[in-house]
C-alpha cells in the first residue's frame, strides 16, 4: 500500500508552483516579523546625560529583519512545494530513527548502561564530565520517579520538587541533629517523602488535569516557603551546611582521618585524589537510578502498575471494574515521591549544603519537561531528555547569552517533530503470544 502510493507520487508530474499564495504567506510572515522587531530592534534607548534617556531609531534593521523573514519563508515554502508528497511531520530520517529506536530498546539500554558504567574510566573523561554526569543522573532518577506519577498514573504533578526538597532536608536534619550518615538517612528520606506524597494525595484525590496541576504547584511552593521561613529548624535562607559526604562502606573520602579511622585511599593503599569521591558519588547515583528503573519496569507489569495506567486511561471504567481509585492514586503518589526523596537525600550529601533556593518551581518544571519531552511513560525517553535538558545548557555556555535561546529552540524543535515526546512508544506489559506458545 505504502509502496504503491510512493510509486504513484514518483510518476506524477510536478505540480505547478502557485506563486500568489506563497508570496502572500511570506508577506504575512514578514509583516509579523516587522511588527515584532519594531519595538525590539527598531527602538533603542541611550543615555543623553543627566540620567535622562533618549531614543535612537534603527528602522533599517527592521527592514532587514522583514526582508530576511520574507526570503526565508518563501524559500522554505518553495522547498516544501518541490519536495511535496513526503512526510511533513517528521523529517523522514528522524521518523525512521525513532522507529528503529522503538524496536531496539533493549540493546540501546544495555549500551547506555555500559557507557554510563565505563564513563569514569574512559580516556576523555574528566572531573567536570563526571560531575555533569552525576547531575544528569540525578535528573534521570527524578524523571523516572515523576514518570510513575505523570507518565503511568496520568496525574499531572507540577510540584514534584517538593518531595526532592523533603528528602534533602530529612537527610540534612538527621545528619545535623542526630548524626546520621548518608546511608543511614537514605531510607528515612524515602519514607518521609513517601508520606508527604500521601499527604498531598489525599486532598487532591478528586482532582484531575488542570486543577490537580494547580494544587500540586501550590504544594511545591508551600514546602519551599515553609523551608524558607521555619528558620529555627531549617536554617531559613541560610540553609543547612556541612552535611556529611557518603562513605565507602564506612571508609571516608578524605586526605586524613581522625585517629583510628582508615580513609578510602589508606585502606586501598593508593595515592589520595579528590577525584575518588567524585567518581564514587557518580556510581552511587548511577546505582540508585538503575534501581529506580528496575523497580519501575517491574511494577509496571504488576497489577498495581496496570491499575495506574488504567486509571490514566479511564477512571470511571476503573471504578466499574472494582478498582479502588483512592489506593491506586495514593500508591502512585507515594512511590513517585519516595524516589524524589531518595534523589533529594543524594543531592544533599553530594552538595554538602542545601538551601530552599535549590528547590524552586523551575526545578519542577525541568523535571516535568524531561518526562514530557522524553515521551510520557517511556523510561529511555527520560534518559535522552535528561541528557538533552541538563547538558545542553552546559555545552551552550560557549554561546553565553544565546544559551537559553538555543535551549528554547531545541525544545520547540522537539515538540514540532516529535509532538508525543522523543520516544512515544509503549511496550505492552503482557503479551498473549509467549503464553500461547508455551501451552
Amino acid at each position, binding site marked *: 500500500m505504502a509502496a504503491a502510493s510512493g510509486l504513484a507520487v514518483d510518476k506524477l508530474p510536478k505540480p505547478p508552483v502557485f506563486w500568489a499564495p506563497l508570496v502572500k504567506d511570506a508577506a504575512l510572515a514578514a509583516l509579523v516579523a516587522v511588527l515584532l522587531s519594531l519595538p525590539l530592534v527598531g527602538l533603542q534607548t541611550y543615555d543623553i546625560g543627566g540620567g535622562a534617556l533618549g531614543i535612537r531609531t534603527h528602522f533599517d534593521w527592521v527592514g532587514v529583519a522583514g526582508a530576511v523573514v520574507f526570503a526565508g519563508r518563501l524559500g522554505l515554502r518553495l522547498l516544501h512545494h518541490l519536495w511535496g508528497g513526503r512526510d511533513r511531520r517528521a523529517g523522514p530520517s528522524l521518523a525512521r530513527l525513532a522507529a528503529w529506536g522503538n524496536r531496539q530498546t533493549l540493546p540501546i539500554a544495555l549500551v547506555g548502561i555500559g557507557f554510563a558504567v565505563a564513563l569514569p574510566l574512559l580516556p576523555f573523561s574528566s572531573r567536570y564530565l563526571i560531575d555533569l554526569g552525576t547531575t544528569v543522573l540525578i535528573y534521570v532518577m527524578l524523571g523516572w520517579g515523576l514518570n510513575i506519577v505523570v507518565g503511568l498514573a496520568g496525574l499531572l504533578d507540577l510540584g514534584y520538587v517538593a518531595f526532592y526538597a523533603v528528602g534533602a532536608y530529612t537527610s540534612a536534619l538527621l545528619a545535623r541533629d542526630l548524626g546520621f550518615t548518608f546511608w543511614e538517612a537514605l531510607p528515612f528520606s524515602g519514607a518521609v517523602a513517601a508520606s508527604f506524597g500521601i499527604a498531598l494525595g489525599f486532598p487532591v484525590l478528586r482532582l484531575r488535569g488542570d486543577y490537580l496541576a494547580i494544587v500540586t504547584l501550590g504544594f511545591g511552593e508551600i514546602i519551599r516557603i515553609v523551608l524558607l521561613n521555619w528558620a529555627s529548624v531549617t536554617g531559613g535562607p541560610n540553609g543547612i551546611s556541612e552535611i556529611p559526604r557518603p562513605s565507602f562502606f564506612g571508609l571516608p573520602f578524605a586526605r586524613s582521618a581522625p585517629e583510628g579511622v582508615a580513609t578510602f585511599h589508606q585502606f586501598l593503599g593508593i595515592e589520595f585524589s579528590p577525584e575518588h569521591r567524585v567518581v564514587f558519588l557518580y556510581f552511587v547515583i548511577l546505582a540508585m537510578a538503575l534501581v529506580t528503573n528496575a*523497580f519501575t519496569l*517491574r*511494577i509496571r507489569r*504488576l*497489577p*498495581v502498575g*496496570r*491499575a495506574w*495506567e*488504567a486509571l*490514566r*486511561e*479511564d477512571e*470511571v*471504567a*476503573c*471504578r*466499574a*471494574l*472494582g*478498582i*479502588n*481509585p483512592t489506593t491506586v492514586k495514593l500508591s502512585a503518589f507515594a512511590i513517585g515521591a519516595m524516589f524524589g526523596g531518595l534523589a533529594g537525600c543524594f543531592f544533599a550529601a553530594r552538595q554538602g549544603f542545601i538551601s530552599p533556593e535549590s528547590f524552586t518551581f523551575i526545578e519542577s518544571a525541568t523535571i516535568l519537561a524531561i518526562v514530557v519531552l522524553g515521551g510520557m511513560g517511556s523510561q529511555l525517553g527520560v534518559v535522552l531528555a535528561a541528557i538533552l535538558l541538563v547538558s545542553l545548557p552546559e555545552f551552550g555556555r560557549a554561546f553565553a547569552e544565546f544559551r537559553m535561546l538555543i535551549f528554547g529552540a531545541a525544545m520547540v524543535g522537539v515538540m514540532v517533530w516529535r509532538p508525543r515526546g522523543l520516544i512515544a512508544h*509503549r511496550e*505492552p*506489559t*503482557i*503479551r*498473549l*503470544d509467549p*503464553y*500461547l506458545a508455551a501451552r
Partner: protein
Amino acid sequence: MSDGSGRVPLLEVERLTMRFGGLVAVDDVSFTAYRDEITAIIGPNGAGKTTVFNCLTGFYRPSAGRLAMRKASGQLLRLERVEGFRIARAGIARTFQNIRLFAGMTVLENLVVAQHNPLMKASVFSLAGLLGLARYRKAELAAIERARHWLERIGLAERADWLASALPYGAQRRLEIARALCTAPALLCLDEPAAGLNPRESGELNDLLLRVRDEERIGILLIEHDMTVVMGISDHVIVLDYGRKIADGTPAEIRADPEVIKAYLGEEEVDGTTEPIIVAPAQAGAQSQRQDLTALGSRFRGNDV
C-alpha cells in the same frame, strides 16, 4: 414465567427515586433481576434507564429507595450505601453507553486489568509480585487464561496484543463486555450493547449473551433500543417512561401492552407489532419536550459518566 418456579433473585430494586434538583429522573421504580435470566429495561430517550444503571453501579447515590444485591452467600448488600468500586467487587459489572475501554492499552491488558482484585490479593501488596514468587506467577497465568478464554469467545484472540483503540467499533463493544465478564460478575449490566452494531453483529451479540447466561449462570440486566435484541433474548422486560415504570412482563406481554404502545407511538391506536420508529404527528409537541428532558439529563450526567 411465574414466580416460585425456582427463580433466584439477584437484585431487588424497591421504590428507587433519583432527583436532580427539580427533575425527577427516576420515580418510584421497583423491579427484580433474576439469575439465569436476561432482564431488559427499555423506554424512550430520557426515560431514566441509564440513571437506574448509574444508581445500581454506585455512580449516583439514589435520592430514595432500596437497592439490594443478594450475594452468593445469601447475604444482602445494600448498594445505595457502599462506594462504587465495592459494588463491582460484590459482583455487579457494567458496560457503558459510550464505550469506555482503556484505549492506550492492549486488548489483553484490558482484560487483565479487570482481574485486578484477585491479582492484587495474589501479589500481596505487590511484594510477592516484585519478588516474582510462584504464587503470584500462578495467579497471573490463571488471569491470562481467563482472558484468553473470553478473547476466543468474542473472536479477538488473534488481536490480543492490539491497542484497544485500534479495534473496529463492534469489536470494541464485544471487548467491553468481555472485560466486564472477566470480573466474574453475578450480574452483568449492559448499557445499550447493540448501539451502532449492524444486524449481523447484533445477531452475534444475541448469541453471546444467551451463551453467557446459560454457561456462566449469571443474570444479565440490559438497556437497549434495538427491539430485535430486546424481544429476541429477554426473559423479562421492564418499560420506563418519564422515570416511571409503566410495564413489567415477558416480551409477548410487553408487545401487547397498550401503555407501552402509547409511550412509544403516541395516543392513537397503532398496530402493536410495529417497531417503534415512527413518531405520530400528534406527538410532536411531547417529543420535543422529551428531548429537553434528555438534554437536561445528559447535562447532569456529563460530569460523572
